[in-house]
């Protein structure tokens, strides 16, 4: 692999042992993937923040990097943690869990990270077209690549961490033009009348499970999205069921070709298969413990819809738990909404926090991503459209 003078300097330890180790690991990953050189990244978003997910092994890795004097060389934001940093007392967590979660954040902050603690960095600090970034978090990667035309691979949590320290990533795959061409074409022929078209997350999940890997060129979905939120739910589902980092969506992606490229394998969304996938991640729940929304984190637009429903109809009939970025709405100042059965949290989400500790085992969600991960974690989950959930909660 070609290395610049500056990179060789880092590798020989001139800029500290942690940066040296980080770059060694990046070179190793780059060589494995066939990169001929590295490229500088402008910013990083690190996933693998929740103690529930990374455990003691992850905590110790981050602790060691911080205590050895590691620091991030580019602006670095963080994915959600395992709790709300202000309201964790309401989440019924063990002392050990809280202490370890706070330490993870403390170590990352000591290295210079901004505790954004959200999975929608693209709404808060969006990268520009063709900007090279080092992002973890599958839904954010898809949004950055597919909607904004930025460049990142599906960096695993620790890889994004090391890339943030070294300020570089292997110049390979989705960072290069030749890998950003469609490898398969998918036509979604769902009509607007189909109930499933109200579940964009499921459509994304289904396409992800069909395509598995590569760069799909997708037509027919733009027409069923009613908002940017639908697009976000769709991409989150796509990144859950597939190893896909870029989708070229007709009508949305700046790099999508105008016509279906010839000689591409063509797939179609079949409603029956879509239903099969729905049944894998959704069961009918008679008495749900709660509704959980915010996977990916809700923007204020969706949050206001819920608050508007309270204004019009009063208290929600079902316990509603909603996850939003701290930069958009402050969970502490929204505590007063609890009397309307609405609990708003920052810094975490239903997938990476501990819903069981909060007394929840049966949950309604609008996100196929959340449905998949919560089902895997042993929860009973029902997947329903956002608007239908709202109607049901306030009738």
């Amino acid at each position, binding site marked *: 692999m070609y290395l610049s003078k500056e990179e060789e300097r880092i590798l020989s330890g001139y800029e500290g042992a942690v940066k040296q180790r980080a770059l060694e690991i990046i070179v190793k990953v780059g060589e494995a993937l066939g990169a001929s050189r590295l490229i500088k990244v402008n910013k990083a978003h690190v996933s*693998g923040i929740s103690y529930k997910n990374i455990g003691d092994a992850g905590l110790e890795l981050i602790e060691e990097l911080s205590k050895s004097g590691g620091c991030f060389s580019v602006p670095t934001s963080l994915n959600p943690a395992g709790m709300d940093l202000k309201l964790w007392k309401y989440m019924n967590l063990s002392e050990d869990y809280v202490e370890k979660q706070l330490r993870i954040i403390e170590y990352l902050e000591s290295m210079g990270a901004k505790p954004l603690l959200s999975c929608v960095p693209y709404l808060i600090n969006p990268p520009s077209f063709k900007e090279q970034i080092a992002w973890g978090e599958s839904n954010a990667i898809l949004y950055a690549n597919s909607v904004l035309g930025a460049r990142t*691979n599906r*960096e695993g949590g620790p890889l994004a961490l090391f890339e943030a320290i070294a300020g570089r990533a292997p110049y390979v795959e989705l960072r290069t033009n030749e890998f950003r061409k469609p490898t398969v074409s998918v036509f979604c022929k769902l009509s607007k009348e189909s109930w499933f078209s109200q579940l964009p997350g499921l459509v994304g999940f289904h396409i992800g499970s069909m395509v598995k890997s590569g760069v799909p060129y997708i037509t027919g979905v733009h027409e069923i999205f009613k908002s940017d939120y639908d697009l976000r739910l769709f991409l989150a589902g796509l990144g859950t069921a597939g190893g896909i980092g870029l989708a070229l969506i007709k009508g949305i992606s700046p790099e999508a070709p105008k016509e279906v490229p010839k000689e591409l394998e063509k797939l179609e969304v079949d409603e029956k298969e879509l239903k099969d996938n729905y049944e894998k991640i959704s069961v009918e729940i008679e008495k749900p413990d709660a509704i959980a929304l915010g996977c990916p984190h809700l923007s204020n637009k969706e949050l206001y819809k819920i608050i508007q429903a309270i204004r019009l109809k009063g208290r929600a009939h079902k316990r509603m738990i909603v996850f939003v970025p701290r930069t958009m709405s402050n969970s502490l100042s929204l505590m007063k909404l609890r009397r309307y059965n609405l609990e708003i949290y920052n810094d975490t989400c239903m997938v990476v926090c501990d819903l069981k500790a909060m007394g929840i085992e049966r949950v309604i969600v609008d996100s196929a991503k959340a449905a*998949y991960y919560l089902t895997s974690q042993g929860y009973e989950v029902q997947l329903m459209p956002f608007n239908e959930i709202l109607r049901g909660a306030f009738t």
Partner: protein
Amino acid sequence: MKKSIVCRSLVCGEAVGEALVSKEPISFYGGVDPETGKIVEKGHPLEGKVISGKVLFFPYGKGSTVGSYVIYRLAKKELAPLAIVNVKSEPIIVIGCVLSSIPLVDQFPLEYFNIVKNSSTVRVIAKEDKAIVVIEI
């Protein structure tokens, strides 16, 4: 009869052990229990099987970027697979295996997923320049 298949070497190392084969992708986060190494994804062809100490064959990774930490947690608990064989490895798997020193190879042909049998003995030799996967046919 044995057959040697030349693959791309991503993380060097050698392993001999029982094959565990999935034709479907694996999401380590959500799909595998980091405490036990058991596949917990509902409806996955390997649901209920334990990946620890196996030579794990699956075509692609999928899902969360936190999967790398699940591989790393398994390795710390000595519950990791002996080696991983993919059609195409993605960075999430590569960094997990680099940190955990798990031999990793890819460009294993998809059609051989029909030939490798669960529990058959396979050998993975991943060297700097190339890798060889020896399977029983």
